[in-house]
């Protein structure tokens, strides 16, 4: 900041100096607001350059105004500095540590939104099958990229994911997680008397139970695991969010519903004396396969609707 005291040699009128000081104070202010960690020296250098340029002319307030006008408003200039600093060009300039990379692993601890879940799970245009996890550390599966990879579809099959799918079909898909939850509650109610007070809740790699829970806790936990995402999905549907969000929320509750049901079956079979953790693996497989199938089938419906619209029109126009 002592550079400011070294300036009087420029021969500018005090009025002209005032204009420059005001301008650069506003630039610094705007940079502070943008929270851009821009090296203040870079801005000071520009200030020197302006002063030098003015020293060559008469340095009247009118000259100053002209030169500063070339730089644009202080806010616009600050924005360009901030942009140069963060070449990603992202709109959130403020440093945000709620998501990023940790030891090479992506993480994200922002509250998951249906937008973010949706765009991670189904983005056929993105070639990456593994995408940064919506919440937590690690990766999620981009079912869209997977479907493209195994040649079930092309990346641009749908202009906007699921937008052309009839609304009733998107809503009807909710029946899948709904049925899973109903099945879970029914099975739990029917088998409750057959459960001992303490039931296995976790298995080691060789399939031996290594954690036991009170049966009430386990049943409650699995019910919440199945019902909470279902309730979330219903809210997303009721609020008429984008079709992609609605489908993704349905897929998410299908995944958790399948896991909860398979965990209960696993616990029940175990206490019945059936060793092994086959139900867990079957559950895991289905928990991924069912949402995948749901995404692909609905996307096919959307593609068919787009094709009906276009091919019908073009046959009219082009079949001479």
């Amino acid at each position: 900041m002592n550079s400011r005291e070294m300036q009087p040699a420029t021969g500018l009128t005090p009025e002209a100096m005032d204009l420059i000081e005001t301008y650069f104070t506003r630039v610094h202010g705007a940079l502070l607001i943008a929270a851009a960690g821009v090296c203040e020296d870079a801005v000071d250098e520009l200030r020197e350059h302006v002063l030098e340029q003015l020293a060559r002319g008469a340095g009247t307030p009118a000259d100053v105004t002209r030169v500063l006008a070339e730089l644009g408003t202080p806010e616009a200039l600050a924005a360009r500095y901030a942009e140069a600093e963060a070449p990603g060009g992202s709109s959130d300039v403020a440093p945000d540590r709620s998501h990023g990379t940790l030891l090479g692993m992506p993480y994200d601890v922002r509250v998951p939104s249906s937008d973010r879940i949706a765009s991670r799970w189904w983005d056929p245009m993105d070639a990456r099958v593994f995408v940064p996890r919506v919440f937590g550390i690690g990766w999620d599966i981009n079912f869209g990229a997977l479907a493209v990879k195994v040649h079930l579809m092309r990346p641009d099959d749908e202009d906007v994911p699921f937008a052309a799918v009839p609304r009733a079909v998107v809503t009807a898909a909710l029946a899948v997680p709904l049925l899973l939850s109903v099945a879970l509650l029914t099975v739990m109610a029917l088998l409750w008397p057959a459960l001992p007070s303490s039931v296995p809740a976790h298995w080691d790699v060789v399939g031996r139970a290594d954690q036991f829970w009170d049966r009430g806790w386990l049943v409650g936990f699995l019910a919440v695991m199945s019902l909470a995402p279902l309730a979330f999905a219903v809210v997303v549907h009721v609020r008429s969010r984008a079709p992609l969000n609605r489908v993704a929320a349905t897929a998410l509750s299908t995944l958790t519903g399948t896991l909860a049901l398979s965990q209960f079956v696993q616990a029940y079979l175990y206490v019945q004396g059936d060793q092994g953790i086959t139900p867990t693996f079957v559950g895991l497989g289905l928990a991924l396969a069912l949402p995948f199938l749901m995404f692909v089938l609905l996307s096919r419906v959307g593609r068919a609707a787009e094709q009906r619209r276009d091919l019908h029109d073009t046959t009219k126009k082009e079949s001479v």
Partner: protein
Amino acid sequence: MGTDNDSRLSQFRKGVVELAILALLHGGEAYGGEIVERLGDHPGLAISAGTVYPLLSRLKKSGVIDSVWRESPVGPPRKYYRLSPTGDAEFDEMAHAWDGVTEAMDELLRKEGSR
């Protein structure tokens, strides 16, 4: 250092790819796979399907290109892309600006560059 350079290169390629797609569609409509393939013939652009499709989607959203499904003589129907009237105008403008940029850059690189 290498990765730093890579990201800088990919940064300016991204801007170029958009013009490349518009230029290709200026010559006539094409489907997604065809666009990827034909741009792939220019290794200097280093374009992959992962770059082309999101860009097509963005260009379509902003009304620069249109898409339409057409029957294919060899297989299932394909989605073809073409420039919209806005896209035509935008292409002319961008191509003109590009000429100015390349001219200036050629001169700079020849004069100032040590190669």
